[in-house]
């Protein structure tokens, strides 16, 4: 899913760069307001985890592989704002140090995976949570389904960029069909990995899962200690 340099022309890449900068900028600001203390180190771990699992390409069809994008995973664990920042950090590291994803395509890749993937997927997650009963199982299921959909959304975002500024001659409709087809398969893997990971964290530290904050066990009777208790 990482776009190399050259696929998309300069004007479209620049426009995507603006979208990416705006999305990540707003996310940074909102993360600063909303991220809880105990979730800050978790967000670092989520970024590292996404980096690692993105290396684990799994086969999806003859001669084709896919890997986790991680947008919904990050959003469910630390919230969409910090989640967007997590995925963007991963993409920057990959592009600068690992030559994975073109430098001029960084804005495109951040737009697709950190903005569309995270916020699109998060919207699906919220929708599913509203329909499903308020249980941990629902959170896991909603995470998995939303993650799968988010891959198709990110792939569709690429097709939009290709339609606007693709340098190759392939007709947009065939690119759309091919991208959605293969990324539906990859989305299944994304859903499984996301559901498994969210399930494990929910089992170990449910209080750390942003997307399950509403269904914490009724333990939080004790109020937060006041900041004045320092001395």
């Amino acid at each position, binding site marked *: 899913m990482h776009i190399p340099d050259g696929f998309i022309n300069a004007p479209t890449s620049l426009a995507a760069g603006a979208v990416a900068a705006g999305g990540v900028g707003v996310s940074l600001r909102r993360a600063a307001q909303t*991220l809880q203390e105990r979730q800050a180190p978790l967000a670092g771990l989520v970024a590292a985890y996404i980096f690692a699992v993105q290396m684990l390409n799994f086969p999806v069809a003859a001669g*084709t592989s896919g890997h986790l994008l991680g947008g919904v995973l990050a959003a469910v664990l630390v919230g969409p704002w910090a989640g967007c*920042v997590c995925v963007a950090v991963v993409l920057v590291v990959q592009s600068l140090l*690992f030559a994975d994803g073109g*430098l001029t395509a960084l804005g495109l890749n951040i737009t697709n995976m950190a903005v569309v993937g995270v916020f699109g997927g998060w919207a699906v997650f919220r929708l599913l949570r509203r329909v499903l009963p308020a249980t941990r199982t629902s959170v896991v299921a909603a995470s998995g389904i939303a993650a799968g959909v988010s891959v198709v959304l990110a792939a569709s975002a690429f097709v939009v960029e290709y339609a606007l500024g693709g340098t190759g001659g392939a007709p947009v409709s065939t690119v759309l069909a091919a991208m959605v087809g293969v990324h539906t398969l990859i989305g299944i893997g994304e859903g499984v990995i996301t559901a498994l990971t969210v399930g494990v964290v929910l089992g170990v530290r449910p209080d750390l899962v942003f997307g399950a904050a509403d269904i914490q066990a009724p333990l939080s009777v004790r109020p937060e200690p006041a900041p*004045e208790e320092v001395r």
Partner: protein
Amino acid sequence: MRARNLRLFLAGGLLVTAGLALVVSGFASSSPDGLERVAEDRGFLETARDHLFADGPLADYVVEGVGNERLSTGLSGLIGVLITFGLGLALFALVRSRRPGGGTGRGPGPRGSGPARGSGPAQAPGSGPKPTRAP
């Protein structure tokens, strides 16, 4: 107690993450991914240009100079995990330290004798772990 649990959780999570990057990555599929496959099938793969840093020491997830392919990929992954984790920690700590309403000044990293707003509210009494950033 809680804080120690959190630290334990983070350590465990980092260990799993490092293991995935170091060991499991060597067994990942090397087939082209979805986008690359589509680009190839639809005939626009050749519009790709070489990455500017294609000769970098970690380019394409191998460590320059390490011959064994799996080990090379694994090591590059481990390096990437540590860099990403460090970068993430630093960024989110910085972001939180500059949160609006923090009151004291505008520089990153509050210091001085006042309650260190940036390093978070105090822990529950008795739990004792000091804020790691306090001087």
